[in-house]
């Protein structure tokens, strides 16, 4: 872990690298929630980000190649956090098919969700990436 963000209002980038294994996910989502709390996100937004990161990492771990590394980068900006999570895969596939329940859930939890597929040079395998943007205040529809 490098460059953890400091106090309220401070921006910065925190990167977490772990084995692409379900065992690592509680640690990663705790980092996400802690960063959001220190960035003074409202409690709904903190909880949503925690769940969104949990979901994202679970999806990536499921598709990861053997012995792959899961990389999560949290960029704390003004009133928002951007999360870039990525992993190597053996077979190129969309980690978040449009219209799937997971896609829908993530769209509700985060303000922006993007899935990227980057084919490898050899034509086999590649890298998949999920990018989330979460804003500090959650407004509900009523």
């Amino acid at each position, binding site marked *: 872990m490098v460059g953890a963000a400091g106090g309220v209002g401070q921006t910065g980038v925190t990167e977490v690298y772990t084995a692409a294994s379900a065992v690592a996910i509680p640690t990663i989502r705790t980092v996400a929630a802690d960063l959001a709390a220190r960035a003074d996100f409202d409690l*709904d937004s*903190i909880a949503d980000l925690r*769940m969104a990161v949990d979901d994202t990492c679970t999806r990536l771990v499921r598709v990861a190649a053997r012995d792959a590394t899961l990389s999560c980068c949290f960029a704390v900006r003004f009133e928002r956090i951007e999360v870039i999570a990525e992993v190597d895969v053996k077979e190129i596939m969309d980690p978040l098919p449009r219209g799937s329940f997971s896609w829908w*859930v993530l769209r509700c939890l985060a303000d922006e969700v993007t899935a990227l597929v980057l084919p490898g040079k050899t034509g086999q395998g590649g890298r998949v990436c999920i990018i989330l943007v979460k804003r500090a205040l959650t407004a509900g529809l009523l």
Partner: protein
Amino acid sequence: MSASVSPTGTEQANYAHLAALHRRYAELPATDPERQRVREQLISGYLPMAEHLARRFAGRGESLEDLIQVATIGLINAVDRFEPDRGANFFSFAIPTITGELRRYFRDHGWSTKVPRRLKDLHLEIRNSQTQLSQQLGRAPRPSEIADQLEISMSEVIEGLQAGEAYRSSSLDEMLGEQATMALGEFVGDFDDELAIIEDREALRPLLAQLPPRDRTILALRFFRQLTQTQIAEQVGISQMHVSRVLSQTLAFLRERMDTDD
């Protein structure tokens, strides 16, 4: 809290007939069978007050039934220990005794791991502040807003929030207030239509059917009605942290079952 739960004047009047019984209870010798009868009269007479206090603690992840039981224990202690000759009002003695019993219950039973008492107290304060601020602000508070209200540091708030992760969820035996259950009824019916946007709904449907009705409703309110956790907490009558736990568990359950088809 004790100030806000003091019975109003009219409620006091409902208990007026009990006042004279305290002296009688204190005077009767321990061997007199009449003493036991007076004691029971006092306890059952004040029971509505104990229930009222228990309800104030509902919606924090413990069942109302348990809370009423704990409050009743507090009431019995108060009846037994009250000394009418000291001139104090029974309520000013009983209310702190009962709420003290309820607080102790939360401190001792609500936690799954050993958490220092200081953190448990801090966590309870944060939860109270969160509820108040949510109503004032119309949204979930930020940690800094809780820190301001409680006059503690931001890092203490974060510490207290993290301690909350060790709070045991007792969703199985948690009872909803009757009002909350009524309000929930309206949402369950609509759920099916809103699934139309989900392409893999045919895989999802049988899993949703396996969920406890309350968890399914909370899921629907969050992901189809798009209410915030704080808004759901208010409607369902449980805390935001509890909503958060229910949602995480429900999502994990669905994810695990859905993804086996991939």
